[in-house]
């Protein structure tokens, strides 16, 4: 990691990666305000491409900051979810499709296929809904689905929506996941009560989020890493120190494991538990609706 950063410093990162100034991002978010001088559909393709690049920069930053652990964390989230054939699953704010693809891959795995044959008499159709407030992220996700070979898969449904006001019917989902996004929701209680509303009886709520570290020595190391190294990396790689400074601060402001568990319980869930990964850097909270 250190070697890579030194190489970046020496070569001047503009040759390796495009630098995005923070001011460009808000402009692209309101794509109607920009004009490339092309026809409308070409412009939307360009917007998708821009977002693809932005998304891959996000991905690269995710890999760098978490030393690729975020992939394992998402794997663990899906493994705790324990998807089954015929499931109706909702992944909220997962526009790029990371969690949804993992759920799909698990469903299509060999062992699950055997299970499917045994449950064939039930004829329930698997549906995985990916909900995101940002339609451009959904488009990026759709593109990635095609790249991964899920283009023909009719289980994936891409829906635009707000975590605080979901457009799904009451009691229609078997599972609900939200990965690294509940921190950014304005009213967390609303999102939790919406999650409770759309889940069926027996449905499970799972939330993967950066959380609080309390282990004595590790806490100091983690704090130093968060406040000194992450913003510097953000500056070097994505040219955006401010966003990553904000990221680190928002993690500290987010409720700790116990408080968040209390919030989930207050929304109506039972059997509220949390799983600390890497000593509390990441926590997976789960709740059962009955």
């Amino acid at each position, binding site marked *: 990691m250190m070697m890579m950063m030194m190489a970046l410093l020496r070569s001047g990162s503009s040759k390796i990666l495009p630098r995005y100034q923070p001011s460009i991002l808000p402009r692209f978010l309101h794509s109607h305000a920009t004009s490339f001088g092309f026809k409308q559909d070409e412009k939307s393709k360009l917007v998708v491409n821009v977002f693809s690049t932005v998304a891959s920069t996000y991905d690269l930053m995710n890999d760098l900051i978490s030393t690729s652990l975020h992939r394992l964390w998402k794997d663990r989230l899906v493994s*705790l*979810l*324990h998807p*089954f054939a*015929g*499931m109706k699953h909702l992944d909220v704010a997962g526009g790029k499709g990371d969690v949804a693809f993992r759920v799909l891959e698990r469903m299509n795995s060999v062992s699950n296929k055997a*299970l499917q044959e*045994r*449950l064939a008499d*039930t004829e329930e159709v698997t549906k995985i809904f990916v909900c995101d407030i940002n339609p451009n992220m959904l488009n990026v996700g759709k593109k990635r689905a095609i790249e991964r070979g899920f283009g023909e898969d009719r289980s994936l449904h891409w829906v635009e929506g707000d975590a605080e006001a979901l457009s799904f019917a009451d009691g229609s989902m*078997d*599972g609900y996941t939200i990965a690294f996004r509940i921190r950014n929701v304005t009213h967390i209680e609303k999102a939790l009560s919406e999650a409770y509303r759309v*889940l*069926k*009886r*027996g*449905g*499970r709520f799972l939330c993967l989020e950066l959380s*609080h570290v*309390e*282990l004595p020595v590790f806490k100091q190391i983690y704090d130093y890493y968060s406040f000194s190294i992450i913003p510097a990396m953000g500056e070097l790689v994505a040219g955006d120190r401010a966003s990553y400074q904000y990221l680190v601060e928002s993690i500290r402001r987010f409720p*700790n*494991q*116990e*408080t968040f*568990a*209390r919030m*989930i*319980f207050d929304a*109506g869930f*039972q*059997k*509220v*538990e*949390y*799983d*600390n990964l890497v*000593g*509390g850097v990441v926590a997976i909270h*789960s709740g*059962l609706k*009955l």
Partner: protein
Amino acid sequence: MLKSSPAARRLLAGIVSSRRIGSPFSLLQLSTAAFDPASNPSTHQDQPPALPTPETSRSRENDGEAHRRSTGKREGVSYQEEQARVLRAALSHVPRLGWSETAMILGAKDAGISPSIVGSFPRKEAALVEFFMDDCLQKLIDRIDSDMELDKLILSDRLSKLTRTRLEMQAPYISKWPQALSIQAQPANLPTSFKQRAVMIDEIWHAARDQGSDVDWYVKRTVLGGIYSTSEVYMLTDHSPGFRDTWNFLEHRIKDAFDLQKTIQEATYLAEAVGAGLGNSMQGFMKRMFQK
């Protein structure tokens, strides 16, 4: 260690019944903390008071569980009851599908609950097997309490009848029982299954109302545990009608154990007598030797 006192018996029964409802929970849940709504809501502690240090385990104490069960109830049912309902419904699918998640998923559908609940069991198939074991133990206790004829039998017959009653409960699942045994033998599940068997054997000995005190408490449990396990394994390959051969096997093993006990006693007496006799003859011999 617990002696056969009424207090000890009630304690064991208490553990059994609380675990019956909460049996899907392992007492060895590592690195997972369960939120306790009964904990003091005003203090935002990092951990509830009952938990040990973060480096070790975040397992829930059994009394903490019971505490949560009594205070964490909502207007509807508690999740432990729902989980028990799902497992009970799943048992009807076991003879066809084995002790598997498929059976649990179908059980959930029968119970009218989303199969997602299967994901909330910590050790899936083991939860089903443990539920069955707890259920059988409860049925056994009920049978013991309602059976009036037990006192009329001698000790070996009492033990034989009780063990047979318990083994008969496994008869409907006998085709899939090897799978259940292998699940119980897995390292993660071994402590719980061992504990369940120990409690069951203890319960049988209590019901047999043994008054003798010549052989040690541990030896009794170990011997009966061994007889139970061997009969259980014998039953797996027994194709006689009504498992007749297994019950013969069981009775013979129990008689052997009692005979062995008698034999050991007699051997002890014989050794004492021989030792005494030898000692006498040696004395006499030495006397005659040195008199000359």
